[in-house]
């Protein structure tokens, strides 16, 4: 096992990884920008290294600085968390070249799944059901129109190098397609330095359902069930739950097996998430996230598995040591992502935390790097806390979540707690009948 792990991230996920390491008897090294000198992960880590100024390109994305920090601190391995360099294959290569272990998948898998077109081909080859679309990049409007005719409208134009909703344009009719193509391509060029785009059939009322997979270096793989992440705003997940209210046991076992078989076929190592759109009983592969997810705690709550611990074990060369039958699901879990934002306008609200009092008691988990008096820097992501609640069933979980939201005090700034309180009272959420478009309408007060 590793002696010392460098955590190349910040905020709640740096703290999450720190906790897993401490619980495995591993020493931790925090790296941080000058803006994060007072951050919780820095305060709690065994050692810390300042790696640069607030700008992420000069600090959390600064590969050389992070590797130098690993060298001077004598770390064995680097955990990239999520975001930043987590899915950067070049970084993973460099980490290995410098003699450290990258706690994650192989650089080849990062590279493969980072290319949306190749990823889709690989997924299809590995037996995953995919959304019907163009076979590769679309270069002309004529090609696009022909392909769209075959798929049926609406269709969506996506950037090959894209992610997080950027470089995506919808065409409801053939009249809209040429414009959407052009706009998506130029956005992609500006945003990712690569204007390549492709076409996909657009599902009207799909859910976002993803399967958590885990595989070791010896070909053993399991799935840890699915998460329903359909509650999104601007392609950012807001609430996640497991199990999905839309699946029954049969569908769950079926998609779980399909995902696990694909992971084995791909020769994938580490934890990962296969994201699907789900509509009318059918799954369509969207992408594979080759990293720890923000929403991994809901899976932990219903399986009892410590996903981060498993990830570290696998990176250290340990075999899974269990089979699919060992994974048992118990109860229901929901995660609310709490952002430092106005709950109606979503304007960011950085600043100093006044009172801070997280909820406690049975079935309540808070993953947050906040503390009273902490000053949220304005440079980074606005997600400041995750409230994860477990209950014996979905209704108990919902009731517990409501009381936990009512107990949560984050003073001094605006947060999205009131949005979550409204959400937990919305009939569509209570009934579990939402799709990926519902939240946008809800925040726009259309529902």
């Amino acid at each position, binding site marked *: 096992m590793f002696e010392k792990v460098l955590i190349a991230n910040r905020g709640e996920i740096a703290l999450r990884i720190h906790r897993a390491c401490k619980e495995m008897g591993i020493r931790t090294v925090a790296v941080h920008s000058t803006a994060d000198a007072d951050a919780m992960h820095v*305060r*709690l880590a065994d050692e810390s*290294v300042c790696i640069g100024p607030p700008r992420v390109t000069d600090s959390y994305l600064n590969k050389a600085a992070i590797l130098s920090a690993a*060298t001077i601190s004598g770390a064995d391995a680097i955990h990239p968390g999520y975001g930043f360099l987590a899915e950067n294959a070049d970084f993973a290569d460099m980490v290995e070249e410098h003699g450290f272990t990258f706690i994650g998948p192989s650089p080849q898998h990062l590279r493969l799944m980072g290319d949306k077109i190749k990823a889709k081909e690989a997924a299809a080859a590995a037996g995953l059901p995919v959304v019907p679309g163009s076979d590769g990049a679309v270069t002309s409007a004529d090609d696009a129109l022909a392909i769209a005719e075959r798929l049926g409208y609406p269709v969506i134009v996506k950037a090959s190098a894209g992610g997080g909703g950027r470089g995506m344009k919808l065409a409801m009719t053939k009249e809209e397609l040429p414009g959407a193509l052009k706009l998506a391509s130029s956005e992609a060029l500006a945003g990712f330095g690569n204007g390549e785009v492709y076409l996909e059939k657009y599902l009207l009322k799909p859910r976002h359902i993803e399967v958590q997979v885990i595989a070791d270096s010896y070909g053993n793989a399991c799935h840890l069930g699915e998460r329903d992440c359909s509650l999104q705003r601007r392609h950012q997940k807001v609430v996640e739950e497991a199990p999905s209210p839309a699946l029954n046991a049969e569908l769950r076992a079926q998609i779980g097996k399909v995902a696990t078989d694909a992971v084995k076929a791909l020769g994938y190592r580490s934890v990962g998430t296969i994201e699907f759109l789900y509509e009318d009983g059918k799954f369509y592969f969207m992408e594979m996230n080759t990293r720890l997810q923000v929403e991994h705690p809901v899976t932990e709550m219903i399986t009892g598995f410590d996903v981060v611990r498993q990830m570290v074990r696998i990176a250290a060369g340990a075999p899974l040591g269990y089979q699919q039958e060992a994974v048992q699901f118990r109860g229901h879990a929901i995660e609310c992502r709490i952002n430092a934002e106005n709950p109606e306008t979503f304007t960011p609200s950085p600043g100093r935390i006044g009172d801070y009092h997280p909820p406690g008691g049975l079935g309540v988990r808070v993953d947050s790097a906040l*503390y*009273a008096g902490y000053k949220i820097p304005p440079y980074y992501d606005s997600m400041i806390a995750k409230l994860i609640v477990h209950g014996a069933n979905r209704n108990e979980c919902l009731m517990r979540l409501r009381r936990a939201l009512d107990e949560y005090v984050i003073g001094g700034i605006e947060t999205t707690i009131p949005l979550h309180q409204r959400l937990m009272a919305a009939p569509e959420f209570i009934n579990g009948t939402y799709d990926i478009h519902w939240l946008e309408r809800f925040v726009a007060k259309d529902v």
Partner: protein
Amino acid sequence: MKRENPTELNELVRTLADVLKETGLTEIEYGAGDWHVRVSKAATIAGPQMVAPASAPAAAAPSEAAAGELLANHPGVVVSPMVGIAYTLPEPGAAPFVQVGDRVASGDTLLLIEAMKVFNPIKAPRAGTVTRILATNGSPVEFGEPLMIIE
């Protein structure tokens, strides 16, 4: 200052208020041990803020950090532009690049920082006299860590 002394408190607040006015700050918070003072002035958000971290969920090392900050704020400080290993000698056994008392010209190499197996020369940002060398040969340095003071 004894925290129970109102005269001293009065003075402290007035002093801080003057500082606030002169510097154009909007808020000064000042604390030590189990007490603190904050003065603020609502205006547009301008200027830097000096803030004592109010709540500390973990045992930090505030005095050490404070000492580092004092040096970091020294007008003649040269800080590390990168994480790495500092070398104050060009090679083992050689004479150091500079010693305390040396006069340096702008652009003179003060020391090397090795990062990613590359030795990066750190040059004097201005002419002056080396009054303090904080980096130790072969020791790791963080980004922003004070290396030397040139006055």
